[in-house]
């Protein structure tokens, strides 16, 4: 088997490993008060019930005016969490944003909205969460950036030596690549704990405890293991073995490919549907990025050795065309899978994608000049070609660092995708309407243009849930287009929902609930909700 055939087999294996069945996680089965309920008297406690035992991670309660409300530490009773407010709740609307970790270490979160006395018609978003979230986020991005940079240099360098006949590397290149490898390994080892700390919003000292690591390992574990294994294979090749002979090249290629392919098995890189496609795209993307970025440093060294330089560059430039094409294609495919074909420039994920595309476009223009003008010039014996190429490669390395930084931030930013496990529960927008003997509270979550869940809680004149024979929802876009009409699904008596992409544009939408209260009587209630 040639090294390249082995690499292909390894990538395929990575894809198969990651495509295993998704585990079922804990789910909320009910709460007291119920979501959307209006309690006459302030409740003693707020209870969340789950289908399996959970550990509380964070909970914050805020009033409809945005003020934070203090909670005592929750009591855990198997699958139930009981929160006691520090002081009895005053009249008003309340939003509990919670996060728990299930037995398999997977964090889930959600929001519960209820009121004491009467449901207020308007809600102001709660003050943004914990400062720890921002601190951990930056820590994760920085360490992930170091991991990517080290991996691209070391594993990508390994791939380069495996695929391009570049002769033996200089001692300082060997030392540099080995240092990059150790940096990547250290960062990869640290990353699960930091990611877990971000997911569970741990205090800094808790990083030494097991909980954040469990949470982090659950989402990153397998990928980290594959990457570390690859780095272990790569270490002797980069540090000692001759890289112009087949055992060294084979090991460098294998280790480098495994280390890079491992990236596709962790985090949300592989979390989009269809999962196998997302995983294979992420693996190919990492391999191509590694080959391109990893080649730059060794190429700088090769350029100094005239006779070998032209041959190595020719080979590199042939392979690079395919690699860059595949890199762009798989990058676009992944962005498409995560964003569902809709690039929202208001969201951080969309903005990061655009930043990455801009840096990449600059990189590509430099690469095109190298390929079109400088590589042939070098082959033709032009003496100015080598220094100009070296200068271009140095600026490529600079832009590559920018791309790596943006990619690290992308990896820690949840794309806006239904069902993706982001952090920070959405704050729903809600409105209430009342008619003769009927009232409706209509909540839209997350309340941004795109995929939304509309929840309708119907109650009778006395505030009790009102079950109806049929409930439909008309959604009229801002600007007075013909409304869309949808049947609402019954979740429980008096509780109906619609999940879908209907609220596609921002603005004030008019939502009309049509409830069939008896065979011959239909009531309609209309509210206006702002969609961001």
């Amino acid at each position: 088997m040639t090294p390249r055939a082995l690499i292909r087999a390894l990538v395929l294996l990575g894809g198969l490993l990651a495509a295993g069945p998704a585990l079922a996680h804990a789910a909320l089965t009910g709460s007291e008060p119920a979501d959307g309920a209006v309690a006459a008297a302030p409740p003693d406690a707020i209870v969340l019930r789950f289908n399996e035992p959970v550990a509380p991670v964070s909970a914050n309660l805020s009033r409809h005016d945005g003020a934070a409300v203090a909670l005592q530490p929750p009591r855990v009773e198997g699958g139930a969490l009981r929160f006691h407010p520090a002081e009895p709740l005053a009249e008003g609307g309340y939003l509990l944003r919670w996060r728990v970790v299930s037995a398999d270490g997977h964090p889930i979160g959600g929001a519960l909205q209820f009121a004491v006395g009467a449901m207020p018609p308007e809600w102001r978003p709660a003050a943004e969460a914990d400062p720890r979230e921002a601190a951990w986020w930056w820590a994760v991005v920085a360490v992930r950036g170091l991991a990517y940079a080290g991996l691209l240099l070391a594993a990508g360098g390994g791939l380069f030596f495996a695929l391009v006949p570049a002769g033996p590397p200089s001692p300082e290149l060997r030392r540099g690549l080995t240092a990059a490898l150790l940096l990547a390994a250290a960062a990869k080892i640290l990353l699960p704990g930091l990611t877990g700390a971000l997911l569970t919003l741990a205090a800094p000292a808790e990083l030494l405890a097991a909980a954040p690591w469990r949470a982090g390992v659950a989402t990153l574990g397998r990928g980290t293991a594959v990457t570390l294994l690859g780095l272990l294979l790569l270490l002797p090749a980069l540090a000692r073995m001759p890289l112009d002979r087949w055992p060294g090249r084979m090991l460098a290629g294998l280790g480098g490919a495994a280390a890079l392919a491992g990236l596709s098995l962790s985090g949300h890189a592989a979390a989009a549907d269809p999962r196998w496609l997302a995983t294979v795209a992420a693996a190919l993307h990492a391999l191509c990025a590694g080959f391109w970025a990893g080649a730059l440093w060794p190429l700088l060294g090769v350029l100094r050795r005239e006779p070998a330089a032209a041959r190595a560059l020719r080979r590199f430039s042939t392979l690079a065309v395919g690699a860059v094409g595949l890199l762009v294609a798989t990058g676009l495919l992944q962005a498409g899978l995560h964003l569902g074909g809709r690039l929202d420039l208001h969201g951080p994920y969309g903005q990061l994608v655009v930043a990455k595309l801009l840096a990449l476009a600059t990189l590509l223009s430099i690469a095109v000049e190298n390929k079109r003008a400088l590589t042939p010039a070098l082959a033709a014996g032009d003496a100015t070609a080598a220094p100009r190429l070296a200068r271009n490669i140095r600026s490529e390395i600079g832009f590559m660092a920018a791309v790596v930084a943006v990619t690290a931030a992308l990896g820690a930013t949840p794309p806006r995708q239904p069902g993706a496990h982001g952090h920070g529960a959405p704050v729903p927008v809600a409105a209430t309407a009342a008619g003769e003997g009927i009232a409706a509270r209509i909540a839209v979550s997350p309340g941004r243009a795109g995929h939304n869940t509309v929840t309708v809680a119907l109650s009778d004149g006395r505030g009790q849930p009102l079950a109806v024979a049929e409930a439909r929802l008309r959604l009229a876009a801002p600007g007075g287009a013909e409304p869309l009409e949808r049947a609402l699904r019954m979740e429980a008596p008096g509780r109906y929902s619609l999940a879908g992409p209907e609220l596609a544009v921002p603005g004030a939408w008019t939502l009309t609930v049509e409830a069939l209260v008896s065979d011959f009587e239909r009531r309609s209630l209309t509210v206006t909700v702002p969609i961001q």
Partner: protein
Amino acid sequence: MTRFPRGAALASALLAFAPALAHVGIDPAAAPAGTTQTIALRIGHGCDGSPTVAVRVLIPQGVHSVKPMPKPGWQIALKTAPLAAPVSSHGRTINEGVAEIAWTGGRLDDAHFDEFVLRAALPETPGAVLAFKIVQECESGTHRWIDVAAPGQPEPKEPAPQLRLTPRP
């Protein structure tokens, strides 16, 4: 980013027009208050092509002495309820009356139309408008002709047929 389904909006606007030609008809649409009338309710189509298998009519308040006309192939069921206000007829006081008529068990193809006929005494309130709310059940799907628009409002999607009471001649 703003890919609003303009085609779908246009199509639904056109579709919303179509049923306006084929609501449930009522004959007569106007009759003198306090008289007894034979009222025909005309079902012009099924539910999106599906044949009609039941027609239920809610008798408006104040309408009394109701009798449905039998219809070959259909069974009739009557629901009675106390009248909101007792009426006197031929020297007798009537406290209870038919509240709902159901014709069931038949089959009216979407390609055909038919009339469901009843006789009723109309209340003594000239100028009033009576809405005959109708539930039309099909093999698949249901039309509920039960919407009554407030004055000045646009016609609802599934309006109940209306009978206007004129002054007695």
